[in-house]
Structures are given as C-alpha cells and as structure tokens.
C-alpha cells in the first residue's frame, strides 16, 4: 500500500533561507510529503540532507546547494537553477526545466540530475559510484569547462540540443580531465581539443546504447521531450584511459 501523501504550498518570497528551511523540515517531520514552493528567491540549501519519498515543485530561482546531501527526494525546478545543485547527493532526482549554474552534482554518489538547458563550469566533478549506486547527470544543452573532471564513477550524458549558445562547442575545455571511473557520453561529436589530456572519444557500442536509451527515455519523459529525436544522432563516449591516470605523478611506482 502506498504511503499517504500530504501536500503543502509555501511562498518563499524574501523569507531568510534559514527560517524557510526550518519550516520545510518541521513540516516534513509532521508528515508533509509534497511541497510546492512559490516565488523562490535565492534561498539556499532547499531540501538539503532530506531523506525519503518527498517531492518539491519549485517556482522561481532557488539558491546555492539545492538538494545537497539529500537521499531520496524528487525536486522539479520550473525555472533556472544556480550553483551547486545536488552537491554530494546520495539519491533522488532533480529536474531543472531551465539552465543551471556551476558545479552541479559535485561529488554526487547516486540519483539523477536532469537539466534541460545549458550548464556552467565543473559539472559532475568528483562523481563516484558504488555497486548499484550510479549517479547520472543528463544535460540537454551545452557544458562549460571541466565537465566530469576527476570523475570516479557514474554517467554524464551531454546532448547539446537545447542550448542558448549556438556558437559554443558542445563542451568546454578539459572535458573529463583526470577521470578514473565512470563514463561521459556525448551526442554527436566533441572536438578533440576540448578533451582532457590523454583522453579520446570513441564510438559507443550496443551496450552503451542500451544505457543511453534507458536514460534518455527517463529524461525525455520528465522534461516532455521527444526521445526519438534525441536518439536520432550518434553518440561518442569518453572513458578513463587508466584506473589511476596520475598514480605516478608524485610517487613513481
């Protein structure tokens, strides 16, 4: 039997983030499961470290570190998001219908972040996976430099389709620099110069395609996009060239 849902609408306005988050946490304690947040205006740390089957529908622009350390909640942002979304998040899903700022999904270890538009710099850096905990980030637009830098696990899928930057390359410089686990998939192709040292982009195989297809299906459904169109192009993948690419940097073995 599904647990009983309890809804609540909050207006953030200019409420100080501390007070606002205290209210959310108190309501969650009291059994509220589905939050609608109106007029969000830069309040930081929304849904940070919350656990379980909660949902957040957010209108307006939430502040830094949305959903940091969270384990389970599903957040939908109907506008743009700022920096640090899903910082070290453990599980759950964040859907961003606009664009997002820098360091999205930093050190993320589970769950999904789906962004419709462009993202800033250092997205998905230090992502890591453990057993079936596989963090996933799908970016509908283009990415800035250092996407997936030092990545240790999980999946980043970069589509480059819904971008406000027609002239920019699909990914910035130093893509995947220092990665030693996980995989970055890119729709179409990525200029060789944008890749981090020692990395190459190779065509995907049928196993990769299965993973991509499943992820795209989920992504397209959440953002009301045409998954067939997304899948209508080839993909390339970027994988680490060794398990410890810089293992010999300071202490040669």
């Amino acid at each position, binding site marked *: 039997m599904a647990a009983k849902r309890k809804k609540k609408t909050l207006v953030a306005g*200019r409420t100080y*983030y501390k007070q606002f988050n205290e209210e959310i946490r108190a309501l969650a304690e009291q059994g509220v499961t589905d939050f609608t947040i109106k007029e*969000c*205006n*830069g309040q*930081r740390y929304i849904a940070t470290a919350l656990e379980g089957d909660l949902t957040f529908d957010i209108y*307006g*622009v*939430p*502040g*830094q570190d949305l959903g940091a350390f969270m384990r389970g909640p599903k957040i939908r942002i109907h506008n*743009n998001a*700022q*920096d640090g979304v899903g910082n070290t998040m453990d599980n759950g899903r964040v859907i961003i219908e606009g*664009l997002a*700022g*820098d360091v999205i999904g930093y050190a993320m270890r589970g769950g999904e972040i789906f962004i419709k538009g*462009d993202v*800033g*710099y250092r997205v998905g850096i230090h992502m890591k996976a453990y057993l079936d905990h596989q963090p996933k980030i799908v970016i509908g637009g283009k990415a*800035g*430099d*250092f996407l997936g830098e030092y990545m240790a696990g999980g999946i980043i899928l970069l589509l480059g389709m819904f971008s*406000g*930057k027609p002239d*920019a390359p699909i990914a*910035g*410089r130093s893509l995947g620099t220092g990665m030693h686990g996980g995989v970055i998939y890119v729709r179409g192709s990525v200029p060789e*110069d944008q890749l981090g040292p020692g990395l190459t982009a190779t065509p995907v195989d049928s196993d990769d395609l299965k993973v991509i297809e499943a992820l795209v299906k989920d992504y397209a459904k959440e953002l009301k996009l045409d998954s067939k169109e997304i899948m209508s192009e080839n993909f390339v993948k970027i994988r680490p060239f060794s398990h410890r690419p810089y293992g010999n940097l300071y202490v040669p073995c």
Partner: protein
Amino acid sequence: MKAPERYYDFEKDISGCGIFGVINRKRGLIPGEMPIQAMTCMHDRGNGLGGGFAAYGIYPEQADKYCFHMMCDDDAAIKGSEEMIKKYFDLHFYEPIPTRRVLAIPNPPKFNRYFVTVPEKPENEFRELPEEDYIVAVVMKINTTVPGAFVVSSGKNMGAFKGVGFPEDIADFFRLEEYKAYIWTGHNRFPTNTPGWWGGAHPFTILNWSIVHNGEISSYGINRRYLCEHDYLCTMMTDTEVVAYELDMLIRKHGLSWEMAAKVFAPPFWDEIERMDGDDKDLYTALRVTYGPGMLNGPFAILVADNTRLMGLNDRIKLRPLLVAEKDDMIFMSSEESAVRDVCPDLDRVWMPKAGEPVIVDLED
C-alpha cells in the same frame, strides 16, 4: 588606519563576495533601491566586513568637475586633505556626503565631497602632467601622505560609497535610496585575510573607473610592483585595487581597447594561442609577452564601469560565478540570478558568459 610601509607586510585577500551591476543603455535613471535590494538578496555572500556601491550619473549639475569623495579618520585628516585639494585644484563646491546614523555601523569615518577642476596654470610639481594624470598624481599624493585620509573616488558625475558593514547597511548609512544613476555596481565583501576596513571595501576607483570583484588576485604582488613602476601606488590593502589602476594604465594611457585589456587580465592559454591563425596568434603572443606582469592570476568575477560602459569578466577558468541578464534597455550582471529576479522578475534573456570573455555593454549615445 594606514597601509603598511613595506611591501611584504601586504597580504592578499581571499573572498567569497557577491557582485551586482546594472546599466540602462538609454541613460534612464535607476533608483538606488534596485541595487540595494539586489545586494540584500545576496546578503550571505558577504560577512558584514565590507559593502559598497558605485553610481554613475549622480551629479549631473556638476558633471564637468571631478568629484573627490574623501574618507577621513579624523579632523586632522580632513584638514590635511582639504589643504591638499585647495593647493592642487580650483575648488568649486564642497559639502559633507549626507549620511544617517545606522545602528549596524559604529564609528564610521567622516565623508566629504569636493567638486574640483585642474587650474589652468598649476604652480606645483605636477604642472607638466596632462589633466587626467594630474588627477591621478594628486590622488596618489593624498593617499600616501595625508595620515588617515583616502580618496574613495575621483571621477566626473560618479561616486563610490563604501565601508565596513553589509551592503544594505552601507546603503542605509549613505542614504543611497536618495540617488538615481544610469549605471550602478554593488559589492558584498567576505574578506578572509586582509583587514575588513573602510578603505578595503569595494568598489575601487580611479578617475571614472570603478571595479567590484569577487575572488582573489593571487598575482597581487607582481601586479602591484608593475603598477609601482608606472607611478600607481597601492594603499588600500586589498588586492582588487590593482585592477582599477591597471584599467587606467592599459586603457587610458596605453590606448588598449577594453576587449584587449580584458585579454591582458585573462589571456588565452598558450595552447589556444598555438591553434590561432597568423594575426591573432601574433596579437595574443605580443599581448602576453608585453603585459605578462599585468595578468591577473587567481579566481575572479569582476564588474568594471566608467561613465559610458559596464563590463563583466571572469578569470579564464571561471572560478567565480557571473551571470548576465537583459530586460529592455537594462543589462544586469550578477553573482546570482535570484538577485536579478528579485529586482526584475521578467527577463528577456539570461546567460552565463564564457570564462575570460568580456561582456561589454555601452550606452547607446
């Protein structure tokens, strides 16, 4: 408080900080409430140890005169700086900068403003300098020789208002809601290893230039020595000061375009230069070779303004956030989108500029 005598007593500044700027391309006047509210939205980017604003178009009746905003620790500093101003300038009008008592701002220094012009035939050691160099020389002289006196700004039809406190408290103190300007910039400071003192708050200015900065100029030492060789003396104990003087040197004195000055601050990487075609390759090689000591190393998002322009620029690997937004004749630049939405909910366009690529917005006239 005075800057240390020895260069090695200078320390660098690492900061979180929040920045906001707005320009109306048609010179439409923007009330002070807008930048104040935007900075209030980003309250937590600072820690109460520095807040400030620059405003352009605030002295239309005195627009042909240089306006010196003076900050003085005590009456002796006021006397000393006034003597200096009278000695070097024709003084047309002066008054205290209106302030109000604010609970959050204990023991503020004293602020006066002086509207001056350069005498036709000055009889002093700076007499051979062109007008703007003359102004710069006097600013340096006051800052380095009058104890407790600092020039906060020295441009035409513009002024800087800054101090120790959160920006909204500083705005309250200076009654900024009573001003209207066609360009505003604002700053919320989070100093970590230089003193949070009144002169160290942003913006930093010289002539019409003003700059607010989020980040850290790790190259402060080399930039400062480079500027010293060109007669710009850093006295404010905050790294950002070098940017104001470099702008003046590169753009006004050396004739570089704003775009080129931005490329001195945040040059392309050598591997990128390597891939450029002939002309660009030569240009950027020459720029890096010539202006190596002017390069700003370290994380930064800066907003630079003069009477006709607003420019936003990131360091070349974008270690600090910067967002640009448009609404009709207004362009906003901000650390956070929420601050812009707070004062202008409906925007035509929002984007985050590429690292090292300046966004330059001109007045239409």
